């Protein structure tokens, strides 16, 4: 199942590496990723796919020190094709 997440993360390359590692390791496939720097944060929009419940990912991402906010967005089927 596909899910869209909005994540606010500290504006550091290692923060992006760290959360992408978690996405991969916890069994979620990255379908789409966009990020924009703003006020010392990256605002990340990400679409992932997995058979696993999404809370298994959001709960792990929320633990990361550099991650300030994790929001699950309602999925727009047309937007991801």
């Amino acid at each position, binding site marked *: 199942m596909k899910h869209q997440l909005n994540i606010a993360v500290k504006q550091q390359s*290692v923060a992006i590496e760290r959360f992408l590692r978690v996405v991969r*390791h916890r069994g979620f496939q990255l379908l789409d990723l966009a990020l924009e720097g703003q006020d010392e944060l990256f605002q990340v929009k990400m679409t992932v796919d997995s058979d696993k419940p999404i*809370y298994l990912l959001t*709960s*792990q991402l929320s*633990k*990361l*020190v550099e991650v300030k906010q994790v929001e699950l967005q309602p999925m727009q089927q047309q937007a991801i094709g």
Partner: protein
Amino acid sequence: MTGAELLIDLLAKHGVKEVFGYPGGAIMPIYDALYGAPVKHYLTRHEQGAGFAAVGYARSTGKLGVCFATSGPGATNLITSLADAMMDSVPVLAITGQVPTAAIGSDAFQEVDVLGMSLSCTKHSYMVERAEDLAEVLQEAMHLALSGRPGPVLVDIPKDIQLAQVPFHPWLALEEEASELDMNEVVKAEQLLAQAKKPVAYVGGGVHNANAQAELMQFLNKTHMPAVSTLKALGSVLPDYEYDLGMLGMHGGQAANIAVQECDVLVCIGARFDDRVTGNLAKFASKAKVIHLDIDPAEVGKRKPAAASMIGDLKATIPHLACFVTDAQWLAHTLEMKKTHAWRYDYPGEKVFAPYLLNELSKRMPNTGVVCCDVGQHQMWVAQHMKFTSPHNHLSSGGAGTMGFGLPAAIGAQIARPDDMVITVSGDGSIMMNIQELATIRRNNLPVKILILDNQRLGMVRQWQQLFFEGRYSETNLSDNPDFVQLAAVFGIPGQTITHASEVDAAVDALVASEGPYILHACIDDKENVWPLVPPGAANDEMMTENA
């Protein structure tokens, strides 16, 4: 003040009195700052030894364990101990030297991307990029390692930042964020317990991390709920608790596993439904509704759904459960199972029977003594046949299952608790993985005792080859190991070898009575296996036993 001096100053201010490590080029300024400093450094003979000594120090006290290594191979050698600390939630601070900032990314001598390597095996990690950030990073790192669910934190410090003049920083008052307990979940838990006919408490390492043994025992003594423990929790439930059923899981006791399979409410307290605990997850406690207490919300529902979850410090959440008394019929049944499946030590053979030896050791050790295991059959025998009154006294590599853990962890524990007896129980496979640390024992004249249960085999792997790989004993014969007593003698450590059951009692007495370091090399039956065993894919009540 230089960055290196600031590091040592902050460690001392934080109460760190001892650190473990190994010097090298990129960390030389820090070792220079250590010279004559109030923080005592213990030189191990391999960085992995330093990492595990820090883990042993932390696990035997609850304090922060600190280890140092240089860049490149020094740092890579630390990684296994950090992964181990991550899996078992141990507060460790690892400081690594890095090549100078200007050389980073140039494939400089002894340069490895340590920050990149640390991502999967630390709670958090830093590479310090500016000297003015160093004080804040170090204080945050120490706070993170110890707060919430503890874990290892790594700080990689380039050599130029160690040498740079850094501004003075006041001590930061970092406070833990307390999460508010959801009282709706407490009500749900109380309702589940009110209806429970066959409840079981499933106790994990989180109880010890939360320093909540008193709250746990108050809850158990009030409710009389039968309790089972994970490997890491052993010692949290006091051994004289009438309804303590011991360890559950792959090599757990039969009473513990059957009780969990029969229970209707499973109260998980600071545990994580690890695969070695659950066996076939779909069949694990399949009749039970789960009440899950944990400080880490990511553990709730990760492996098994919870009907009620109480997120927060276990010291605060456990008392909410003491709201009922367990059904007498269920208690009588669990006591009957405990009696039926009690361990037996009346081994008929003439060879040394490891469970008997460990049980005797347990009886003769002071209850303040510390046992540090390695990994394999002996580790499971310790968990089954020795009694502990605190997880501070039973150090065993649980999540990572790291062979080579025992000896350096024992060194860390002995340095942290110089007045307590520390014994490492190892196998003839594991002991060779960090055998170089005998030199650290000698250098510091540490009274660490060593018990090697030697079956001339990589025993646990051999057991699985026998049971599940048609007796194809691939690379598990270790009969060409050195004479361990002679080897220890080279490091000035006395000891003896025993080969017969009749020698066990006197040998255990000699081990316990020795004032300094001592090695007891016990040659055990090479065909002895660990029973019971839940085979792969099976439910926990489908245990294989010796006579099955």
